[in-house]
């Protein structure tokens, strides 16, 4: 097979540089410059990994102080103002500078080209640019948050953010605005890559679900982010020049900002979630050695989520003064978006049926994802019900619900994916025992942190409260105790992952026995991913075929 190019493409004489044995994307060049000027999607993924890990721990530190402060009803640890700045920082960093980018830019960047058998993303320079744009945005925001802080919460509701807040609202918004462009670039790159650069034989319906999930998430990245950008511009203009766009004093409507904001910020939850769902689809099939149950349904549920997620935003505004009719429409649509999520959960469960299930670390995280996401999704049904939302809106019930989705779902999925593809990224295995321990600690810590918050929420404890009535203390202490366990669970992987780089045993190209093109090259992969363009002849997840006949 000297020529791996098949019909469908016009043959072009194209010689690939010969590869010295053992050469991979990590050792092909050394030095800071070789990293900062790289256009290799794998190296950019590593750049993102490092950046995002730092940001995750900064956001986590803020959460720690918040939980410590809530140990006592009078909030003796920090003053109210500081507390407000802390939860704002936590939300802003975690949403925009960790959860939204993390799976697409780290795992997606690394794997999308490899999974479709391409040498790189469609626009490698834009990919690098996106990292720079993101980092600049992150630095501006971090500077704003550390030098003075911002106390609007991550939601920037007007007219508080536009008129009344006396903190660094403008620089924070500028940072978020800038980093938004990196989201758009990433999404654009993925969509273009999947449309035009699939390997011969890799038809749309042979694409792994990880890719479909990223495709769906990219739709949201590309089409939702600009609306946030515009909303931020308008608030910025209003704040800078005192012009009323959302200011009722000057004829504006503050609720309009909420419409624009949630038009972005509801779908954004699915940017966090869809790629994680893609990861779970890969992991569950691999470790149960089964074809995915209902490939077509899981696939279309991803696209369905991407579309429907745009139709439900005003369920964040049921008590915010929108019209009753509008609330009814959005409530009904919100239930629609629950259907595709349910389909996914059912199909993952069915995939386990008659499988050969190996309890490796990635699967533990994936099962954790399924459990926590199911709980998060089901409590979402409470919030979509207009009558109940009226009571639990803006309480800890909401907090618990979206942490189950964003942390229990998205972060769990990300951790699973990181553990699953870590051998591919680094060529090393991490400690089996410690990683399983970490999965367990995170799961237990998570449940203990956020389960009491459901009870607190139904009792009526509002969110963003620095002090609270004393009868809520026991549940808050439970939650804080859980948070400290959770913190241990998140720090632990940092150590054994780093340790594996030095002392981990080599993993070989395919330690889990997985299908999928990315496992068909050495670990770590060579600079151009594949020595010859692979030709795909079957769909993904053919774990039940005697001999892997997937790739020539």
């Amino acid at each position, binding site marked *: 097979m000297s020529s791996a190019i098949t019909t469908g493409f016009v043959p072009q004489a194209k010689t690939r540089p010969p590869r010295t044995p053992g050469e991979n994307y990590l050792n092909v060049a050394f030095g800071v410059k070789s990293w900062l000027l790289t256009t290799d999607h794998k190296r950019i993924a590593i750049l993102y990994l490092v950046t995002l890990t730092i940001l995750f721990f900064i956001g986590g530190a803020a959460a720690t102080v918040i939980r410590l402060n809530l140990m006592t009803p009078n909030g003796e640890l920090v003053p109210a*103002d500081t507390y*407000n700045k802390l939860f704002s920082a936590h939300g802003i960093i975690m949403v925009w500078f960790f959860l939204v980018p993390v799976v697409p830019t780290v795992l997606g960047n690394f794997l999308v080209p490899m999974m479709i058998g391409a040498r790189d993303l469609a626009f490698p320079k834009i990919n690098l640019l996106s990292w720079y744009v993101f980092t600049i945005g992150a630095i501006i925001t971090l500077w704003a948050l550390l030098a003075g802080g911002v106390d*609007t919460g991550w939601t920037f*509701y007007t*007219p*508080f953010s536009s*008129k*009344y807040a006396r903190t660094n609202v403008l620089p924070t918004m500028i940072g978020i605005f800038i980093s938004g462009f990196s989201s758009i670039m990433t999404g654009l790159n993925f969509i273009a890559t999947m449309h035009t650069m699939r390997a011969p034989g890799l038809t749309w319906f042979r694409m792994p679900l990880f890719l479909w999930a990223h495709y769906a998430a990219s739709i949201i990245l590309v089409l939702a982010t600009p609306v946030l950008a515009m909303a931020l511009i308008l608030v910025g203009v209003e704040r800078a020049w005192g012009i009323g766009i959302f200011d009722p004093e000057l004829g504006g409507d*503050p609720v309009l900002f909420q419409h624009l904001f949630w038009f972005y910020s509801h779908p954004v939850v699915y940017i966090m979630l869809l790629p994680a769902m893609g990861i779970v689809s890969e992991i569950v099939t691999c470790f149960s*050695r*089964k074809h995915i149950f*209902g490939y*077509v*349904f899981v696939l279309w549920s991803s696209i369905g989520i991407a579309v429907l997620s745009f139709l439900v935003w005003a369920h964040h505004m049921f*008590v*915010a*003064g929108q019209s*009753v009719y509008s609330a*009814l429409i959005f*409530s*009904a649509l919100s239930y629609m978006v629950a*259907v595709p999520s*349910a*389909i996914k*959960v*059912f*199909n993952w*469960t069915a995939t*386990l049926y*008659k*499988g*050969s*299930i*190996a309890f490796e670390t990635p699967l533990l995280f994936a*099962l954790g994802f*399924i459990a926590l996401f*199911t709980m998060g999704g089901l*409590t979402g*049904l*409470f919030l979509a*019900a*207009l*009558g*109940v*939302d*009226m009571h639990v*809106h803006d309480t800890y019930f909401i907090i618990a619900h979206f942490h189950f989705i964003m942390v229990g779902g998205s972060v769990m999925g990300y951790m699973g994916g990181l553990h699953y593809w870590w051998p591919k990224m680094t060529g090393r295995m991490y400690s089996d025992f410690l990683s399983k321990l970490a999965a367990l600690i995170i799961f237990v810590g998570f449940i203990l942190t956020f389960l009491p918050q459901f*009870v607190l929420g*139904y*009792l*009526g404890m*509002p969110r*963003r*409260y620095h*002090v609270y*009535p004393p*009868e809520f203390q*026991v549940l808050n202490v439970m939650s804080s105790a859980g948070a400290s366990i959770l913190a241990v669970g998140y720090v632990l992987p940092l150590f054994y992952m780093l340790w594996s780089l030095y002392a981990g045993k080599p993993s070989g190209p395919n330690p889990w026995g997985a299908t999928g093109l990315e496992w068909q090259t050495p670990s770590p992969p060579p600079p151009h991913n594949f020595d010859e363009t692979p030709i795909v002849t079957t769909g993904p997840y053919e774990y*039940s*075929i005697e001999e892997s006949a997937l790739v020539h």
Partner: protein
Amino acid sequence: MFAEVPLFPEQASTTAQRVDALFFFLCAVCGTMAVLIAGLVLFFAFKYHRRAEDERTPRITGNNPLEWFWTITPLFVFLIMFLWGANIYTSVSLPPPDALEIFVVGKQWMWKIQHPSGQREINELHVPVDQPIKLTLTSEDVIHDFSVPAFRTKIDVIPGRYMQIWFQPTKTGRYHLFCSQYCGTSHANMVGSVYVLEREEFRQWLDSQAATGSLADQGRQLFLKFQCITCHSADASARAPVLEGLYGRIVPLKDGRTTVADDAYLRESILYPEAKIVQGWEPIMPTFKGQVEEEDLIKLLAFIKSLKPGQTPVRNEESLPPLDAPKVPPGGNPKPRQSVPTYQPQGKSNQP
């Protein structure tokens, strides 16, 4: 210690009972689903765990009837949830006509409450039990949220707008009042108490509070103080329409449209008089924006609402209310609901 840890909020309004019923239904359905999924996952995980490294699995790619089953079935269950929730929500949005109207003004960081009979409270709200209460809320600065967990009642309080919510307390006692929408530094201190009293107790409480006349009386004084009476007079030289019997009627506008004289319209007409000009009149009214505070606006509104034919004060009258000043009936203001008669601006048009 655990004896005093509440796990479920008190149920102190008719709404609370309805919301909780739906909540328990959701708990039952979702709990069943959660147990089912967790059970299946655990069962499969243990039953089919890998016993040998070279274990083979059957190739199962799916089952379409099963897929459609678990796509369609949730839709029906969701439909029930939606309709149930929508039913509660819409009925909470429509106050009954006999509700007692109380006004709430939120500001950073306190709740100011005005009773129709003129009593004022701060961060406290006293209401009688078993009586529908309609709150009309507005904010002086940012968005707040008036939330009483024991009533399962919550509404954002938006500046520049009148929001409405109603509830009917069913149990006497003292309940938390929270601001649920983040509103700045002391957001967590924008809390208070709702006291639900027996009817007799409530009457006594009202009497024990100092009140300088009913809200409408106070509005009447403002009506004189701001010299609204100069133009909105009941005599032939009036330069603006008489406001008697205006509230709740349809008003024909100069540009051919019509509008309903509701709270929002009255508010707009005081702050932005040019916005909607009544047919047959000239836009001569100056704006009172910046002069009238939210609380004063509420008083003026109460006065206009209470104004019956023949009750417009005389133009040269002193600011003190006369003895026969209009009183707000205890059941609030009856509003025409079924047939809305068109408001006929009385007095002579000032057009040549």
